């Protein structure tokens, strides 16, 4: 029989270890946030490729504007672009905003050849739209490589980021933003369409794909901390 006197130090050690790990991820998150916080605003040129089953659109040249704390706008200045509403989350500040979350270490994973630390972020606010965020952090480079977010009202979305020249600011060169989307339905009777005889041979797998969409944004250049007018975000 193990005496209580022996269990107490064991429990203490265990709790210390867990608390230590949490402290580790909080330090890691603080370091990541330090890089991101260096950016007060930016303006970037980018190419956006939208991949949604019901949207037949060309690639678009867009401008991405950001201003602290959480203003983000994607604009196609030469035409029309459908911008996923959840795309504001490409601003990583949104995920790490204010540190109002509980960070839980979820071990390690691998993205490509990079070992990453998986950290789950639970919002402290019970009524927050975000239910859970999971970030995959490259500990060596202090960069978020992947982020998954589950929300109450807007489904789930995922960010995959690759970095280049602006890694020191925590700004990616390329983002693949995957999001949930509903099937598009035109209101009945508003169009008289030309039946050209082409069939929709959509399989169940194809139909399942319509539940997801993605937008791939490749940034060409950033103008960081040069000031961005508030009027841009209206």
């Amino acid at each position: 029989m193990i005496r209580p006197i022996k269990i107490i130090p064991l429990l203490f050690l265990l709790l210390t270890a867990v608390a230590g790990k949490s402290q580790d991820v909080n330090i890691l998150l603080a370091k990541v946030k330090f890089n991101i916080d260096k950016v007060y605003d930016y303006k970037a040129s980018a190419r956006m490729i939208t991949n949604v089953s019901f949207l037949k659109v060309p690639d678009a040249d867009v401008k991405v504007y950001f201003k602290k704390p959480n203003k983000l706008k994607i604009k196609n200045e030469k035409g029309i672009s459908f911008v996923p509403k959840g795309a504001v989350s490409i601003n990583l500040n949104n995920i790490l905003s204010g540190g109002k979350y509980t960070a839980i270490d979820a071990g390690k994973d691998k993205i490509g050849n990079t070992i990453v630390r998986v950290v789950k972020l639970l919002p402290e606010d019970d009524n927050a739209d975000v239910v859970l965020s999971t970030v995959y952090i490259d500990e060596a480079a202090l960069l978020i490589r992947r982020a998954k977010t589950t929300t109450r009202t807007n489904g789930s979305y995922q960010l995959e980021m690759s970095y280049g020249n602006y890694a020191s600011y925590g700004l990616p060169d390329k983002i693949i933003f995957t999001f949930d989307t509903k099937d598009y339905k035109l209101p009945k009777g508003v169009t008289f369409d030309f039946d050209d005889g082409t069939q929709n041979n959509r399989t169940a797998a194809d139909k399942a794909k319509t539940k997801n969409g993605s937008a791939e944004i490749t940034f060409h250049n950033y103008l960081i901390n040069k000031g961005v007018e508030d009027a841009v975000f209206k």
Partner: protein
Amino acid sequence: MWKLLQIELFKISKRPRTYIAFIAVAAIVFIFQFAFKADGQSYMDLMLQSVKDTFSFDRVQAINGYFMCYIILNTLLIQIPILIALIAADSISGEANMGTLRLLISKPISRTQIILVKFAAATIFTIFLLLWMAITALFLSLLIFGAGDMLVFRSKGDESQILLITRDDIMWRYYAAFAYATVALTVIAALSLLLSIFAENSIGPIIATVCIVIVCTIISNINVPVIDKNVKPFLFTSYLVGWKGFFYIGTDIDGKTIKGSLENWPAIRKSLLILIAHIFILVSAAVVVFKKKDILS
């Protein structure tokens, strides 16, 4: 023939009803333009209600001159046959009503020439009406709303799609669509001309043409498999909206639009050929019937 055609065009230009069509087109176009200028965003909201929570886009830019023209054509090209019938159905029956038909065929011109000239005059009227539509619905809309990328909302089988055509890839599609519409509406002119041979006044053929167009349009839009297979392919109204095919832009395997492409050119070409065949059959029938007709009026 040229002299005869000039006389026919002169007669058409002197009829007040000719201008009813132009006034009606202008009135409908202006009402559309006013409505969309005042509250076009409500229409956009209606069309995009199922995805408005997922995507944001610039609604102001989306309601531009190209989009307006597409919406107007979508509505008007169903009603325009009635306006064509007003003139074409009067071709022979109007002469019979006024008592000038006997005089006309007593001239040293063949009955075939009379029909062909009447048909050519109705076709020229159709072209002028479509040119008027292009001026009011396209060019005036571009002046009022400006140019921009164009959105096309489309149902394809059980799927709905949103197509985006960039502004530098639109104008040629309109030229092609108006050319197609000319052929499509010439079928109506040919039908009205044929029906006008059987009547002594123009009301009967006008009403008959309108009824045929309405009934066939309704059947063309019924989605029942047995009708889809066995009836629709034989109705000219199934091909009247073929002009829209020029706005169904081709896409690659990833769904990315390809500039300057059409999704299904063979289908448009086939529709065009079917419409031309209709014109040929209807005008030939008009010639045959008119040749055999006893002129008693």
